[in-house]
């Protein structure tokens, strides 16, 4: 076992000598800078796209906030909220005449 271990260690050690550090080709640096520039332009495009997306999202949210914050417009013909329409349709006198409200309470409300 030890014999194989030593032989394996020797084999690994000889591997570095068998594969010395290669020299870079003359094209190495120009190609590297071409790749750097290529990646940079992709990153710039992604950045621009995300900025456009962000601006659009901000504009949309402003529009929604504006729409939600404008108070609901009530028409004099009664097209208000459900409660308002219901109150207009059933005034307290009518409720009193139907016996739903005591007559005194209805009179106090109308005063």
């Amino acid at each position: 076992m030890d014999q194989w271990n030593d032989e394996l260690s020797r084999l690994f050690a000889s591997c570095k000598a068998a594969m010395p550090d290669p020299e870079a080709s003359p094209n190495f640096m120009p190609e590297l800078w071409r790749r750097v520039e290529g990646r940079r332009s992709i990153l710039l495009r992604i950045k621009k796209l995300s900025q456009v997306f962000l601006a659009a999202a901000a504009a949309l949210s402003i529009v929604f906030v504006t729409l939600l914050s404008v108070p609901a417009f009530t028409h004099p013909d009664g097209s208000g909220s459900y409660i308002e329409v219901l109150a207009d349709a059933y005034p307290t006198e009518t409720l009193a005449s139907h016996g739903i409200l005591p007559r005194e309470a209805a009179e106090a409300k109308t005063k």
Partner: protein
Amino acid sequence: MLVDFEQIQKAKAGDDTAFNQVVIAYRKRILGTIARLIGRPEDVEDVAQEVFLRLYYSLDQLRTPEVFEPWLYRLTVNASYDYLRKQRRRNESRMSDLSEQQVMMADAAAGGKVSGEEHRRKQVKELVESLLGAVSEQDRILLTLKEVEGLSLKELEKIYSVNENALKVRLFRARQRVLNAFEATRASDKKPSGRKD
């Protein structure tokens, strides 16, 4: 360190000339390490460029110039690992297309072009390559860095950011697998070759 800290600081700050000098200082060493890690000379430059490209875009995350070399080695390990994974997938599909005879003929043709010292080197490379095939890509890289590149456990600890004991266990297991493959190879070499007419 092959460059001074100031140079690395300048490159980190976005100075392209300083970055160029850092690449020139380290490229031979990185090319050599990659060559031994991946075992395919034709793709070494491509992987090395990927390493320096990753370095260019991640240099601003480097905390101090003191950790530059382990950082560069980590990028080298990651790029080599990515390459080996892709290569394994590619080889699986490519080899399945070739018959055994075609593979043997291709090997014989490649072997016929070299001689002498070159032939011995080729044998060592091929043997190490086949032995490292017995372990995963991660273990292959770890083992190569330790056994072939001669990095110490302390250096490996910095590169992998893992404690020394975990590395020792992993290295021991990987070496055992390679050792078993080595024994099997040697045993089959010594076996008398079949029947004699």
